[in-house]
C-alpha cells in the first residue's frame, strides 16, 4: 500500500539532499575539472583542454599497470574468498561442532580497521623478525622476501584481503543457506542422492543469485583498495603493487595535478562500470536458467 501525504517529502529530502550535495555534486564538479588543465603546485591558470587528460592517461603505461595490478588483486582475492567462504558457510550451516563460537569469531576480521590489519601484516611478513619466515625455516622451506619482491608483495596483499573479507562472504552466504527450504533435501535424500550430487544439483544452483550478488559487491569493493596497500607496501617495490586509488592519491595529493587526477578517477569509474556490465551480461543466462 502507498498513501499520499505532502509530509513524505520531509522524510525523504534530508537524506536525498545530503547525498546529492556531498556525493553527487562533487562527482559533477570532478567531471568538469577533468576537462581542464589545472595545477595547484606550481599554480597554473585553468585552461580547457577537452579530452587531453584522458588521452594522456590512456597512453600512460603506469595507468595500465595499475589497472592490471588492481584487477589481479581484486579477481584473485575474491575468487579465493568465495571458495573458502562457501566451504565455511556450508560447514556452519550444517551445524558443525562449536558453531556458535565459530560464527562470532569468524566475523572479527571484517570489523578490524584495514590500516591496523596492514600494520600487523607488516610485522608478520617481516623477513627477519616476523614469525612467517621463522616457521618456514623450521619446516625447511626457504625464507622469502614477502614485501620487497614484486610477486610476493602482490601475493601478500591478496592474502591480507582474503583474511579480512572472507568473513563478509561467510556472513551473506550463511544467511542464504539458512533460507533454503528443507523439503528439497528431504526429497533428494529419498532418491539417495549423494552429498556431492546434492551440492551441485540443489545447493549451488539455488545459491547462485546470492553468490552472484556477493561476488559483485566484493569485486566492486576490492577495486577501491587503498588502505592496505598504502601501509603494507606503499605501492612498492617500485610501482609493482600500486592500485588505481593509490595512483590517484599520488597524482592528486602529492603532485596536485587536479585535472589529471579527476580524469583518472573517471577512467577508474569507467573501468568499474564496464566490469560490472560485463559481469552482469555474462551472468544473466545462468540467473534466468535457475530462477
Amino acid at each position, binding site marked *: 500500500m502507498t498513501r499520499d501525504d505532502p509530509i513524505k517529502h520531509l522524510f525523504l529530502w534530508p537524506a536525498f539532499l545530503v547525498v*546529492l550535495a556531498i556525493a553527487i555534486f562533487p562527482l559533477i564538479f570532478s567531471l568538469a575539472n577533468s576537462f581542464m588543465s589545472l595545477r595547484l603546485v606550481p599554480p597554473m591558470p585553468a585552461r580547457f583542454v577537452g579530452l587531453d587528460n584522458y588521452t594522456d592517461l590512456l597512453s600512460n603505461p603506469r595507468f595500465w599497470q595499475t589497472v592490471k595490478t588492481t584487477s589481479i588483486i581484486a579477481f584473485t582475492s575474491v575468487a579465493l574468498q568465495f571458495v573458502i567462504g562457501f566451504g565455511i558457510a556450508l560447514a556452519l550451516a550444517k551445524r558443525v561442532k562449536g558453531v556458535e563460537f565459530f560464527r562470532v569469531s569468524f566475523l572479527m576480521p571484517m570489523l578490524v580497521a584495514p*590500516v591496523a590489519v596492514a600494520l600487523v601484516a607488516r610485522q*608478520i611478513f617481516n623477513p627477519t623478525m*616476523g*614469525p612467517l619466515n621463522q616457521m618456514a625455516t623450521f619446516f625447511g622451506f626457504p625464507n622469502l622476501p614477502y614485501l620487497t619482491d614484486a610477486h610476493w608483495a602482490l601475493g601478500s596483499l591478496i592474502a591480507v584481503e582474503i583474511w579480512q573479507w572472507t568473513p563478509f562472504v561467510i556472513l551473506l552466504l550463511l544467511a542464504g543457506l539458512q533460507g533454503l527450504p528443507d523439503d528439497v533435501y528431504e526429497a533428494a535424500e529419498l532418491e539417495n542422492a549423494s552429498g556431492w550430487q546434492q551440492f551441485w544439483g540443489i545447493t549451488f544452483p539455488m545459491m547462485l543469485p546470492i553468490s552472484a550478488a556477493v561476488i559483485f559487491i566484493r569485486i*566492486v569493493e576490492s577495486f577501491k583498495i*587503498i588502505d592496505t596497500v598504502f601501509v603494507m607496501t606503499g605501492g612498492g617495490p617500485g610501482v609493482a603493487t600500486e592500485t588505481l586509488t593509490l595512483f590517484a592519491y599520488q597524482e592528486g595529493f602529492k603532485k596536485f595535478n587536479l585535472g589529471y587526477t579527476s580524469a583518472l578517477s573517471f577512467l*577508474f569509474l569507467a573501468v568499474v562500470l564496464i566490469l560490472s556490465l560485463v559481469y552482469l551480461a555474462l551472468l544473466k543466462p545462468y540467473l534466468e536458467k535457475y530462477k
Partner: protein
Amino acid sequence: MSVRDLHGPRRWVAFALCCAWFAFTIFPLYWVAITSLKTPPDVVGGPTYLPFVDFEPTLKAWRELLSGIRGEFYSNFWSSAIVAVSSSVFATLLGAMAAYALVRFSFRVKLLSGVLFFAVAMGGFLAGRYWLGLPPATASILAFCAALALSVIANRFPLPGKVMNNDDIVFWFVSQRLFPPIVVAFALFLLYSEMGKMGFKLTDTYLGLTLAYIAFSLPIVVWLMRDFIAALPLEVEEAAMVDNVPQWRIFFGIVLPMTRPGLIATFVITLAFTWNEFLFALFLTNSEWQTLPVLIAGQNSQRGDEWWAISAAALVAIIPMVIVAGLLGRLMRSGLLSGAVK
C-alpha cells in the same frame, strides 16, 4: 534433526576446516596482542610466541601510549569516536526516515529532470567559472542551487521520457556504493578548500568529515532499513491514522520503536564502517580532527620497527570493533540479519 546435518567422518572434516580457518583468523590478532606486551629486545631478537614462556610480558608500551609520551593520541581517539558515533547516528536516522518514505509513500521522479540537474549543475559551474569569472566555490554553490531548483520545478511538468518510481530511487541511493570513493574524496577536498577560502572552514573540521561520512553511509542504511521497515505490520500505523495521529508522530512514536532491532543492526554496521574509514579522513583532515586510522597509518614511517608501540596503537583501533563483533554476533544469533541480506 534436519537432513542437512552432517554425519560420520564428514562432520569431522567440516570441524577441522573450521578450526584451521579459526587459527588463520585469530593468529594476526593474537600476534598484535602479544607484541604490544613485548620489550624492544624481545621484538628485535626474532619472533617469540608465548608470554611468560619465551618472553616476559610488560605493560611498558601501553603505559607510554596512554601517558601520551610518544605524541598525541587521545585527541585522535576522541575525534574518531565522536565523528564515527555521531555520523552513524545521523546516517541511521536520516536513512530510516528516507527508507520509511520510500516504503510507505510513492514518489515519481522524471528521468529528464535528473538529466536536467546534471546538465545545469555542470554547465552552470563551467559557465560561472569561465565566463563570469566567479571563484570556484561561488560558482559551484550557485550551479548546485540553480540545478536543484530547476529540476524540482521541471519535475512538476509533464515531461516526456521514463518516470522513475521508488525502486529506482532506492537503486539510485545504492548505486553510490559503486563509485570509487577517491572520485568524490578528491573533489570534496577541492570543494572544501574552496569553501575555506570563502571563510567557511570545512577541511579538518567536525562538520566536514561528519557530512562526508553521513553521505557515504546513507546508501547502505537506506538499503538495509528499507527491508526492516517493509517487514513491519501495517495495522498499527493504520489504527493510528484512523485516530488522526500526525505522520511524524507515527514515525517517531510507532515505527522507530518497532524497528529497533533493525536500527541497532544498521547503526552497528555503519559504526564499523565510519570507525575504520581511511580515505576520506586522509583527504579531509590533517591535525585537529585527524582520526585514528590516519594516525595509525603514519606510525610505520614515523617509528620504523618500534613494533611494541605500533601494536598498542593498532589495538586501540581494533578493540572497540572486536566488542562490536560480539554484539553483531549476538544480533545474528537472534536471526536479525537473515532477512536483511536478500
